[in-house]
């Protein structure tokens, strides 16, 4: 079994290095195929490991070699395959394999085809390191690794020029990539601090040793560590106020958005909270903060999705919103439900994104859903896929999203957090509305794209086939809730609804369902027949506020980017050159000038020399007298 751990981990790395060999040569289909096969191998290994862990209930722990050892600090490359990490490994490799195959079709006209596969596989490797490491430093390797791959992939089309924010809210791929990297770095500092706190209080960074030592630590230290680690999670999972990068990250190719910015990397923050659940369970204040922030983000992001016109950005907002749900569950102590939603979400959200990729492919990279409509005729399968994924996202039974999301909402009720519960219920309705607004505007109604002279066509057959596992899982994953619960709660704390909630479960479910169906019906009424724009609403304050993302990107630019640039300029031109350096030069000039000045005493004239000598003698006498008097 140990070898399988290495196979699962290193197959993506080999894939990446293999593709990198051809990184600068023209497109070669076999690069994509070899990469996909290697990813498939990694997936198989992960699934076998999952089955093994399921059968035996025993985690597999391997230590490959020593990494950093200095003073009392010892960090190995160690990998842990237990119920939590094997779940993540399976989800990550499964979605990655589909995305790799999909990319063979999607990127087939791109001249940097080979380079794309290199980056994509490198990302999967980093993600595997992130989920498999047995210590916080190893997690941080993966954490930063996925950050870099995300930077490379968002900026994949680096040659595009910068545009104004009005033309393109993300300015340019390279701008969006840098934004994502820098925002994540801010959060990473929090994560590092969390690691430092744990190290100096426990003396180790290994999960098992840290978790075993937690009961001996004081409450303030636990709170500080939990908070610092959660700041790290906020960056990767794009929680408010570090959320702006996620929608801008949509500048990357769509498979990237599906894999990194929906299914896997952005859930790393949730994974961290689940992984470190012994710590978070001991810090109720931090946990409640996580739940509250998660709920807020769920609602906040859904509200922005309501009015957006960009196919990918709508899905990005919905990802943000669903991440909020996951944090809500994790914060409320229902770690296994959070993990369950993480997995289910990965499947249907990846499907949704890849479906959107098909639409973009058909529409020549047009993203404005107001310019689409009636595509279901040309793109039947994509329509079905996106429809299924949207139903799952909206939480319609018996699809995956129903089970997982309903459990989260029920948890909020069960914990007595009725405000959170109400917000989550309303958000579920909003989710259904914006998802189907998008589906109807894209696939139903009048064929507005004809005005723009676009002739859409369905995606390649093999791509559609490759998507089928995701569709299947989006439909059926919910039925495995019981088995999944039994599997992961061997490691994660048990969470069950109280008797009271249990009685009300049907009514609670019905309330959520009413909101969800209501949202769909509303979307159907408004958009299924075609697009009727309401100028009055669109010029309204609320609409504009939402469409401009509450003006938060503008705000950040005004209060962070621009002042930073300004102060930097000031520091350089005024402080560094005019004060620090000028002082140094001033001292040098003074010495030079005084030397130059005294040089003029050397006139060669004997009488002036005698004069100077007399003055010097008198001065010396005075000094001697003074020192004699004082001394």
């Amino acid at each position, binding site marked *: 079994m140990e070898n399988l751990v290495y196979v699962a981990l290193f197959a993506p790395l080999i894939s990446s290095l293999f593709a990198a060999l051809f990184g600068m040569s023209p497109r070669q289909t076999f690069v994509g195929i070899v990469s996909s096969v290697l990813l498939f191998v990694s997936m198989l290994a992960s699934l076998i490991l999952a089955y093994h862990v399921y059968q035996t209930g025993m985690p597999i722990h391997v230590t490959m070699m020593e990494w950093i050892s200095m*003073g009392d600090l010892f960090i190995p490359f160690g990998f842990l395959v237990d119920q939590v990490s094997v779940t993540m490994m399976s989800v990550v490799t499964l979605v990655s394999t589909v995305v790799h195959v999909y990319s063979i079709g999607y990127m087939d006209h791109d001249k940097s085809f080979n380079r794309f596969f290199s980056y994509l596989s490198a990302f999967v490797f980093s993600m595997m390191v992130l989920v498999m490491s047995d210590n916080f430093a190893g997690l941080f390797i993966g954490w930063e690794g996925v950050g870099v791959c995300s930077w490379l992939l968002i900026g994949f089309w680096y040659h595009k020029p910068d545009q104004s924010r009005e033309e393109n809210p993300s300015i340019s791929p390279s701008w969006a990539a*840098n934004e994502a990297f820098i925002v994540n770095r801010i959060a990473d500092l929090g994560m590092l*601090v969390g690691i430092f706190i744990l190290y100096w209080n426990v003396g180790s960074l290994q999960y098992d040793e840290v978790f075993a030592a937690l009961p001996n630590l004081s409450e303030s230290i636990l709170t500080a560590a939990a908070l610092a680690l959660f700041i790290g999670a906020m960056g990767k999972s794009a929680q408010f106020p570090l959320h702006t990068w996620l929608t801008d990250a949509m500048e990357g190719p769509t498979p990237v958005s599906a894999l990194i910015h929906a299914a896997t990397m952005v859930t790393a923050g949730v994974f961290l909270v689940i992984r470190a659940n012994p710590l978070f369970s001991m810090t109720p204040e931090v946990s409640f903060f996580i739940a509250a922030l998660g709920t807020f983000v769920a609602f906040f992001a859904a509200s922005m999705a309501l009015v957006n016109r960009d196919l990918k950005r709508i899905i990005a907002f919905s990802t943000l919103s669903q991440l909020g749900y996951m944090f809500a569950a994790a914060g409320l102590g229902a770690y296994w439900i959070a993990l369950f939603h993480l997995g289910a979400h990965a499947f249907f959200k990846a499907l949704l994104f890849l479906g959107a990729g098909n639409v973009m492919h058909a529409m020549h990279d047009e993203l404005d859903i107001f310019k689409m409509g009636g595509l279901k005729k040309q793109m039947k399968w994509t329509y079905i896929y996106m429809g299924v994924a949207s139903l799952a996202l909206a939480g319609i039974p018996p699809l995956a999203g129903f089970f997982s999301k309903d459990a989260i909402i029920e948890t909020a009720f069960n914990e007595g957090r009725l405000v959170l519960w109400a917000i989550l219920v309303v958000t579920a309705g909003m989710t259904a509305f914006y998802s189907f607004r998008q589906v109807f505007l894209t696939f139903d109604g009048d064929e507005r794209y004809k005005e723009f002279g676009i002739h859409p066509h369905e995606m390649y057959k093999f791509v559609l086939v490759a998507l089928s596992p995701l569709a299947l899982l989006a439909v059926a994953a919910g039925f495995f809730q019981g088995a999944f619960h039994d599997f992961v709660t061997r490691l994660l704390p048990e969470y069950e609804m109280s008797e009271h909630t249990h009685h009300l479960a049907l009514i609670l479910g019905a309330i959520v369902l009413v909101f969800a169906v209501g949202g769909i019906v509303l979307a159907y009424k408004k958009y299924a027949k075609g697009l009727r724009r309401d100028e009055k609403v669109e010029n309204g304050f609320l609409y504009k506020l939402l469409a401009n993302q509450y003006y938060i990107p503008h705000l950040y630019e005004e209060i962070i980017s621009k002042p930073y640039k300004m102060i930097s300029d000031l520091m350089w031109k005024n402080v560094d050159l005019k004060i620090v350096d000028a002082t140094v030069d001033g001292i040098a000039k003074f010495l030079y000038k005084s030397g130059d000045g005294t040089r003029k005493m050397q006139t060669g004239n004997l009488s002036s020399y005698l004069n100077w000598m007399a003055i010097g003698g008198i001065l010396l006498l005075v000094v001697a007298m003074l020192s004699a008097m004082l001394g």
Partner: protein
Amino acid sequence: MENILSVLVFFPAIAGLLGFVVNKESARVYGITVAAMEFFLSLWLWFAFDGNNAGMQFVEMIPMIPDFGVSYYLGVDGISLFIVLMSTLMTLIGMMSMNITKNIKNMVITLLFLEMTMVGVFLSLDAIIFYLFWELSLVPMLYIIGAWGGPLRIYASIKFFLYTFMGSLIMLVGMLFVAYIYHDLTGVWSFALTDWYALVLPVSYQLWLFAAFFIGFAIKVPMFPFHTWLPYAHGQAPTIGSVILAAVLLKMGTYGFVRFSLPMFPDASVIAITPIAIIAIIMIIYTAMVAYAQKDMKQVIAYSSVSHMGIIMLGIFAMNAEGIGGSVFQMLSHGIVSGALFMLVGVIYDRRHTKIMDEFGGLATVMPKYAVIFGIMLMASVGLPLTIGFVGEFLVLIGFYQVSPIMTILAGTSIIVGAVYMLSVYKKSFFGPITNEANKTLEDLDVKETMSLVPLVMIVVWLGVYPKPVLEPINNSVKAMLSFMDEKAITQEAKDMIKVAKSTQEIK
């Protein structure tokens, strides 16, 4: 080989002297050969080095002026070993990548002399010998900047020379004073560092002496506010000058702190923790901001050096093995990465004869190999895990966290502000469409450039993934130094601050 250290110090100089009779056409090849031999000699030193021995090895001692206790005294331990290796490596790589045509023979000879002084500084265990090499290293660099530099070369080289020279004179006074006290206490003269270590000085003496050495080292590092010579020197120096300056010469300052200030003045060092940490934090944040404001690519790298040296300074004064060991490793890391970055700037300068980033844009399209190597070095510079840059930075920060969490968080912003200026350089130069006609026909890296950059890339990855062979000897020597400092410290505060690693205590 018993006297390998002497061979290491004087081989380049003797070869440099012989270089005068070498034909002008073959000067470059001659230089590379000598530098390669020197590098292999230093590799040999590493293999012969006993990593488990924390003390000085291969010690050579020949009395020179016995009346004053001045002797030719060399030795190497885990701290200096890798800095020497890095110096010989960077000289070799710099020589390989050099594309100077004017007076190439003079350049090669100068570089070989410079190599002697660099290796000499890191191997000397006698203060006078140390001081000799320290000052001698200024001369070749003065010549390199002054003779092959840009339009402001005279100003820049004189500023560099006088500024650092002034600092080291004050350091010399400090050295003479230590020797005087030593004579006072023991009745014999000695400039041997190992004798000086045994000297237990009152705190007030320590503070004065610490200050004297501080000025000498701080200007060299360079620490804020003594850093302004550096942008001029880098701005005017030819590529090879910048590479050596950033990679090796700056390390003399930080090495001085580790070799002299900490073990000789432990109490004063502990008192200096807070002020130095504040300066280090200013270096980290302030110069990172200044770097962000630059328009010239080389100036960005120059200021980024100051910022990274701030991290090194912070680690040295963490007073625990994690921090000091991390600093020593960071010295190597910064040497390799900044050296490579200066070489990379040189690559584009050779093609376009400008370093202003507005002139570039979209270079990744025409020069993909160049963009890849630049990207890797960029990531190493911002401290990405599994590159060389992470190990040192992580150790320094984790080490200093024990001293002050707040200051560590402030210093930790280095990972943010560092990313800001480096990514902005990359975006301005490599991303976007090609707007400037002159960039459309640029050629990618040629064989010579690839040959000199690829080894550095390999080291960056190797030491990022498997730093153990380097960390282990550093770790042993640093731990030994700390327990020595702890024993020697007079005040209780200093004893409390200096953290002896648990693993060393167990051995005792």
